């Protein structure tokens, strides 16, 4: 399979004042294939979100490299980068500016990419419908939407610019179980519709969701990758002690 994203020996150390260092990532390497869905699981603080933030350049790594389609991430302008990578955040409602209508937020990346007003409007309406909302949601404010609806809108926003990579950082964690299922179904539909055109990094602490949705999985603990492999194999046949514990802890 052709690789779209290659992460090599990523280290990330946060300086918290004098001599207090927190190592968030320790030599993390993995790759993401075209059209693949990669799950990252691990407990809180294991460095899952840090990976996402480095790949989207919201954070810079201490050292190590990230290659996107063979180019170093730091050599790609942010404008170009964000046409290729988009993210869905953990908190659906908070990821929308409370003072802007949903339509304006969804259209932001399109406007920045130079789409005309009429094109943008049409595309936003289509996106919202693709994500299971109706086009009149564009005129609503974030607080008028439920968490699930907001997350659908957030997915619509992330897909607006047709990115090659979609990162879902705990995208379903703050939703209740039935809504989680709907969002996963939506993501699944998107994958089927786009095929090789979209690769997904699905970050979660919910093993069942990852099992249902991802081709491959990475298990992280304390900033290190402890196990990596096909989802079914890792979950049925865990080799690492931590992975065993993690799987055993599922009720």
């Amino acid at each position: 399979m052709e690789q779209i994203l290659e992460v090599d020996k990523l280290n990330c150390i946060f300086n918290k004042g004098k001599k207090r260092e927190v190592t968030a990532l320790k030599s993390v390497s993995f790759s993401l294939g075209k059209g693949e869905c990669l799950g990252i699981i691990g407990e809180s603080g294991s460095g899952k979100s840090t990976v996402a933030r480095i790949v989207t350049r919201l954070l810079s790594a201490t050292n190590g490299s990230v290659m996107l389609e063979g180019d170093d991430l730091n050599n790609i302008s942010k404008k170009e980068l964000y046409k290729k990578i988009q993210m869905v955040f953990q908190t659906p409602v908070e990821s929308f500016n409370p003072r802007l209508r949903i339509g304006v937020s969804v259209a932001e990346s399109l406007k920045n990419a130079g789409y005309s007003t009429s094109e943008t409007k049409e595309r936003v309406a289509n996106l919202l419908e693709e994500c299971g909302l109706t086009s009149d949601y564009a005129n609503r404010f974030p607080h008028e939407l439920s968490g699930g609806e907001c997350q659908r809108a957030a997915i619509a926003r992330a897909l607006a610019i047709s990115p090659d990579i979609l990162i879902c950082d705990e995208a379903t964690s703050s939703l209740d179980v039935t809504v989680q299922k709907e969002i996963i179904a939506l993501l699944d539909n998107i994958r089927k519709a786009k095929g090789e055109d979209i690769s997904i990094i699905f970050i979660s602490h919910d093993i069942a969701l990852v099992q249902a949705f991802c081709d491959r999985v990475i298990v992280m603990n304390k900033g290190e990758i402890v196990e990596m492999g096909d989802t079914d194999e890792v979950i049925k046949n865990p080799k690492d002690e931590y992975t065993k514990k993690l799987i055993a802890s599922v009720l």
Partner: protein
Amino acid sequence: MMKKIDVKKKMIFFGILVVLLLLFSVFCDYLTPYDPNEQDLSIAKQAPSAEHLFGTDRYGRDMLSRVIVGSKASIFSTLLLVAIITVIGTIIGIICGLSGKVVDVVLMRIADIFLAFPGLVFALAIAGVLGGGLHNAIIALAAVSWPKFARLARSQTLAIKEEPYIEASKLAGTSTIKMVFKHILPNIIGPILVTGVLDIGTMMMELAGLSFLGLGAKPPIAEWGSMMSDNRSMLATQPWIVLTPGIAIFVSVMIFNLFGDTLRDFADPKSSRRK
């Protein structure tokens, strides 16, 4: 729910008073019964009467006309002053909040220096160096008053700059300038505006204070603070000359403060006064 309507009603009420006050000072030139600068020594120092409701001053000028015209200098210079410090403070605060690091440290230490001096004394020094006059008084007070707004804007910016919607907009490829106007400013402007309105009263007093000390408006411009200052020796003998502009200051400061108060209550859903 009942109380929310009450706050709204109160705000509309004081808002109307503020608008009336502003209209009054805009059209003050047409509202005077006499020429505020015409001297007639034959009627100097007259007590309030039907003809001269507020009496006359030592040059025989009609006090009512002078108080009315004085509203222009007092209110508009105050509003100009508050507008200047709000805008400058907010710009500096947002720059500090967003840039962090060296820029933040340098600008905030400068703000600290200004905050460390007693405001009016420092303003006195600046006004003294620049010389008297209303413009210089505004510059002096602006120089000592912006740090408050800078600190407020900075803390508000810091509070929201890590919000997911800011990061989402970064991912949408929005430039920093656009981000400030589209996402940051609309979400931090509320508390800043309320503080600004609440500051109108204080600034009016400080401006009047500087004028009172002879560093503000120069005669014959009618300005409430300087009117009180010029005639303070007559407080015991002809009190109306000092008291009428004093009452004018009192009333306008009250109106702006009460409006600011209700605006704050209205803007803050958790305010205890709402209950």
